[in-house]
C-alpha cells in the first residue's frame, strides 16, 4: 500500500474528501504523525524514516531546487495554477489519485527517487537524472 505523509499546509478537509483508502492509499496527518509545526527538514526526515511519500503544497520546495535524489522515498508537490485553496487542492489531490490508480493499479507505484508535480491537467514525474514523464489527469477514475 502506498503511504502518504500529508504536510500540515495541506487543507485536510480537501484531502479527506478523496476516498484514499478505497484507492489503496494510506494517509498520515500531522496530528497522527506528531509533526505539527515541525521544521522543513524534520518533516522530510519523518517521511524518509517512515517510508512515506511527502505530499505538500509548499511552493518553495520547488524553488529551492530539491531534486529527486533529495527525497529517497519520493515527494509530491501539489501545484495549483491559481490560489492554494480547499477546492483547488481537493481537485488536484483527487487528480493525483486518479493518475496513480489508472496508470499503476496493477503495478504498485514505486516513488523512490521521484518527485511528482501535480497540475490541474497532468502529473509530471521527475526522476533522478532529470527525466520527466507526464501523465494526463483522466476525467474519471
Amino acid at each position, binding site marked *: 500500500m502506498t503511504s502518504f505523509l500529508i504536510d*500540515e499546509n495541506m487543507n*485536510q478537509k480537501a484531502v479527506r474528501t478523496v476516498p484514499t483508502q478505497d484507492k489503496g492509499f494510506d494517509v498520515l496527518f500531522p496530528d497522527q504523525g506528531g509533526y*505539527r*509545526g515541525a521544521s*522543513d527538514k524534520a518533516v522530510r526526515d519523518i517521511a524518509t524514516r517512515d517510508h512515506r511519500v511527502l505530499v505538500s503544497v509548499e511552493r*518553495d520546495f520547488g524553488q*529551492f531546487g530539491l531534486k529527486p535524489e533529495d527525497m529517497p522515498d519520493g515527494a509530491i508537490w501539489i501545484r495549483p495554477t491559481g*490560489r492554494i*485553496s480547499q477546492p*483547488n487542492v481537493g481537485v488536484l489531490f483527487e487528480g493525483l489519485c486518479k493518475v496513480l490508480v489508472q496508470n499503476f493499479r496493477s503495478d504498485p507505484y514505486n516513488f523512490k527517487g521521484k518527485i511528482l508535480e501535480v497540475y490541474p491537467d497532468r502529473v509530471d514525474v521527475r526522476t533522478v537524472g532529470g527525466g520527466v514523464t507526464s501523465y494526463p489527469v483522466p476525467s474519471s477514475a
Partner: protein
Amino acid sequence: MSDLLTLVNKPAGEHAQIQHLSGTTLPAGSGKAAFFVGTGIANLMTIPHHRGFESRTFSIYNLLIPEVEPSPQFNLYAAFSNFGYLRERLSHSSDAVKSVVEMNFNIMHGNPVFRGTRIPIYQIIEELADGTPLHELEEGYPSLSLEQIQRGLDFAASVVRIYDDQLPDR
C-alpha cells in the same frame, strides 16, 4: 513613527526609489547585535522594483543567523525574497500578533506562519480569496483557531498599510 523605514516610489515608469533608514534595530532572535544606520541616507536605485532594498536587508540578517542551512539555492532565493522586510514588520507588530505569527528560516523556508504550525499566512488569505468560509478553514486546518486566523490576518493587513501609526499597537 514606529516604523523606521520609509520607501518613496516615483510614479511607475521612472523606476526610482529613495530609501531612508534611521535608528534601525534588528528584531530579537535574529542576532545578538544591533546596528545603527544614520539618518539621511538616500539611495537612488535604477531597479524598477523594491527588491534591491530587500536584498540589502537580507544580507544583514543572513550574516547574523548562522543556523540557516547553507545552500546556494536557498541563499539565492532568500536574497530576492521579502524575508527581511516582513521580519521587520513583524518585530513592530503588537504582542497579540507576535504571539500567533512566527518567521523561521527552517519552517516553510521563512514564510510567516501561524506559530507552532507549518501553515503560511498567505495560504489562509488565498483560501479566503477563493471563497472558503472561516468555519471550513478550521476544519481544513485543525491546528488553527478562529482567533489565530484573525491575528494572522491582522499581520497581513499591517503590511499593506503605508503607515504603521495609522493603527498603533493594539
